[in-house]
């Protein structure tokens, strides 16, 4: 692997009217890595992806994608990037094969028929090649969109919430494919809301309201949050969440089935906060989850999307 990052952007900023949607974001992804891009709805994930693939021109910031300048070499970048949009972006009145053929033509690929056939085969779409794209179910649409995004063998794959509304098995298969592609050297930047998907990434970047709040491997992000957690088990533990969350020293408390999950930044204060219930509920230290970290980070961030409207 070369030491040159596949994606390296600095200070990326985009404003729509008075609202700063993406604010001074830095992001570096090394080749062959899968980077999970997380953040609440409307936090600027899509806008960032669109700037990286050259669909939007940033208001400020600079960067290189595959060593090409983001501001001046957008067209060259587009040839080497595959982008799967959040909304199904292929033609519903064309068949699967026709859609792929169109994409192959647009990228000027040689051996077109062969490549289309290969792509269909690899994604298990051969039997459905003549089906209209609009008639496909969610999972198949997603497969087709991925096929269209990788057929020209891009070096970078950008995926915008690719698994929304897709069943667990299809999601599993999808992620297996992503890993296979990354193993082949493709760099993947994928936005998602699912924590289990985040955990399948090599590294993650968390953005809220346009601001990058955390970056790194999952372990590093959790460790960097400074959170500690307690796992509470006992009769009625799950019903205490609201009450315990009001206590000083508790950042958040959430029921998980019949048990309770409590987080805070100070271990001693956290212990003290749950003391009144210690007689009937057994609290044991546990690792804070990625979800804990994100919700904690999000609560600390200011929501600029509401006040500016």
């Amino acid at each position, binding site marked *: 692997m070369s030491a040159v990052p596949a994606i390296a952007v600095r200070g990326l900023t985009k404003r729509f009217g008075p609202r700063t949607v993406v604010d001074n974001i830095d992001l570096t992804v090394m080749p062959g890595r899968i980077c999970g891009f997380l953040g609440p709805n409307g936090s600027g994930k899509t806008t960032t992806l669109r700037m990286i*693939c*050259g*669909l939007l*021109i940033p208001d400020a910031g600079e960067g290189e994608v595959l060593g090409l300048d983001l501001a001046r070499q957008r*067209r060259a970048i*587009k*040839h080497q*990037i595959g*982008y799967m*949009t959040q*909304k*199904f*972006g*292929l*033609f*519903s009145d064309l068949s699967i094969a026709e859609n792929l053929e169109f*994409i192959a033509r*647009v*990228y*000027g690929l040689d051996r077109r028929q062969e490549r289309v056939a290969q792509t269909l085969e690899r994604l298990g779409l051969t039997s459905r090649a003549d089906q209209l794209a609009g008639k496909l179910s969610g999972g198949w649409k997603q497969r087709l969109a991925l096929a*269209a995004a990788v057929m020209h063998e891009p070096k970078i794959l950008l995926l915008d919430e690719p698994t929304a509304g897709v069943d667990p098995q299809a999601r599993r298969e999808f992620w297996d494919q992503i890993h296979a592609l990354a193993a082949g050297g493709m760099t993947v930047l994928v936005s998602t809301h699912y924590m289990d998907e985040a955990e399948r990434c090599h590294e993650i970047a968390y953005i809220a309201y346009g601001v990058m709040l955390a970056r790194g491997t999952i372990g590093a992000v959790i460790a960097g949050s400074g959170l500690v957690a307690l796992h509470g088990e006992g009769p009625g533990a799950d019903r205490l969440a609201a009450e315990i969350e009001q206590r000083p020293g508790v950042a958040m408390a959430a029921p998980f089935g019949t048990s309770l999950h409590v987080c805070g930044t100070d271990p001693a204060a956290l212990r003290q906060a749950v003391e009144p219930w210690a007689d009937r509920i057994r609290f044991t230290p546990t690792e804070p989850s990625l979800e804990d970290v994100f919700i904690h980070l999000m609560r600390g961030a200011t929501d600029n999307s509401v006040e500016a409207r």
Partner: protein
Amino acid sequence: MWQRIGAMIFKEVRQMARDPSTIAMMFFFPIIQLVIFGYAINNDPRHLPLVVEANDNSAFSRSIVSALRTTGYFDVTEVAGNYGQADRLIAEGEAQFVLTIPTDFARRLVRGERPQLLLAADATDPASTGPAVAAVNEAVARALARDLIGPLAGRQQGPPPVDLVLHRSYNPEGITSHNTVPGLLAIILSMTMVALTSMSVTRETEQGTMENLLATPLRPVEVMVGKIVPYFLLGFVQVCVVLGFAIVVFEVPFVGSLGLLVAVTLLFTLVSLALGFTISTLVESQVQSMMASMLYLMPSILLSGFAFPYRGMPVWAQWLAELLPPTHYIRLVRGIMLKGWEWPLAVPESLKLMAMLLVLGTIAVRRYRDTVA
């Protein structure tokens, strides 16, 4: 049940209110129609340009001219005796009628003969010719009734003292389809080029496929050209079909040059495509683009001279019609097909279409760039 229906109604009204363009259209369409039908359209046109070529400078011809003026049907211009000018004026559309009074008119009238008056009419649009011809007849009769007095009073009885010879140019039988079928070319092309183009572009943005297209190496301009070309070809096929029907089925005479017709048709098609593309950059949904296209098509049908005589409209409506590309294209098609225009006569209207192409094309490309980048 009523509560549920009520909920539906409430929701629907709310959604309608969210889409101001629909509401605007609901008020706009009837108002436009009222104004056009109520004020602009007149099947009994007045102020038609009539040229009198008075070759005998007699009291009779002067009183005929003044009688023509008082009818209100005509804007009368007099030209000095110059045979052959009449045809040119009608061909260019300067005059719709030319009344030629022969040199020996007065002499023959006094002698008790039955002299001829020649009325040449541009009959491409028979609807506007009919009432005007009747008005000329009446004006001549009235003028002579006043003048044939004294020793000539006897001429008042018996057959009419003057023989008004009517020469309907370009459409001697007064067949309406000769006028409407060439005009249809403009309307059909407008419908396809403007409405279909704007909707097909809007569909890409509405369905989210535009985003995907632009993430590929396709340039915005390449997307634009690629979307336009098929419709351009479709328009070409339509022109062939309409022309074929016009000539074979309706037996519309085609006296001009086919090459020239093809050239102006290409020009008009491009103008319409540019307009369709401009619309697509201004609207958000296919429904809106459909409405916007209708808003363009309706005046195009009513004001362009296709359905009603252009000359019958008040000046403001004529100005409005001048802004509509079909008005100019219809004149070109009728001129070329029926009057046999060669290119020098086609230049003025073609230039107007070119100006429109330039303006609309610039707006389309600019707005389109803004929406995709």
